[in-house]
């Protein structure tokens, strides 16, 4: 089952760093395909908001001549939200702690996004 395999990739990503709190794979239309989220988080909202942010990031990169979008990073005082394309039809969203080591997370996210893209 692809959904099980997606959850497996997300679980590996969550396990790769104690700084990662939640992950999800979302269609570019904002529907969640798989997620490893805390119970307090609404899967539909995480999905739709992530896809919307990535779409806006895409347009911003185009409009401001920043080339092809690689990722969207949001920093709040309670942590980070990182969104990246996983192929052309999916978005990988990662929620991380405020003191997270971003370099490692970027690397892990890139690998996971690539695995998801292959799977889809």
């Amino acid at each position, binding site marked *: 089952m692809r959904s099980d395999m997606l959850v497996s990739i997300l679980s590996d990503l969550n396990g790769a760093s104690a700084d990662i709190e939640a992950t999800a794979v979302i269609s*570019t*239309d904002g529907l969640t395909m798989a997620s490893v989220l805390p119970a307090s988080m609404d899967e*539909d909202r995480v*999905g*739709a908001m992530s*896809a*919307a942010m990535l*779409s806006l990031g895409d347009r911003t990169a185009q409009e401001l001549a920043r080339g092809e979008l690689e990722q969207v990073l949001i920093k709040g005082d309670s942590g980070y939200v990182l969104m990246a394309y996983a192929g052309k039809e999916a978005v990988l969203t990662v929620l991380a702690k405020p003191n997270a080591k971003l370099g490692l997370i970027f690397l892990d996210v890139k690998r996971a996004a690539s695995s998801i893209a292959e799977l889809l």
Partner: protein
Amino acid sequence: MSYDFDKLTSYGKSFSELTPEREALLIEVGKEIKPKLASITEDFYQYLLTIPEATTFLGGRVESLKKTHILWMEGLFTGPFDKAYTEHMYKVGDVHVKVKLPVEFMAGAMTLINQRLTALIVETYGHDKDYCAQVLTAISAVTGMSLLMMQQSYQASTLLEELEKFLKISGMSRALFTNLATAYRDI
């Protein structure tokens, strides 16, 4: 876009106080009033042509607009003022949005029409003050309801236009917007 025209009909009637009695009165006076409406349409368009901002939207179309206008006015004295009437007025509003007619033109035009109808009713029924007042109230109700329906359409069309623009600017697909709205439907 689907719209609940039954609901809008009730809403429009409650705001304009278009009661069954007033509807019946409009139809009752219709026999006498309808033959006189052509002169109102004529006068209305003659006046519009004196407003520079309005002439932009009339250019070369006055004669065809007059035909539509008189049919609508006859409808004010024919009824029924039901779901179909509401849907028709809503579509009229839609057409006005499509030709980018400024929203104030509808209220302005309705004011001009009401003034002319008032003069006609007073001229026709002025000898019977009570009856004349009742007819004027009924006309105010039906034109008020018609305006409300067109404005509803305007509001919806304007929002739709703005949404299309937002989607274009943000790069969001309609499906994504719908999913986003669904995820936050309770706010």
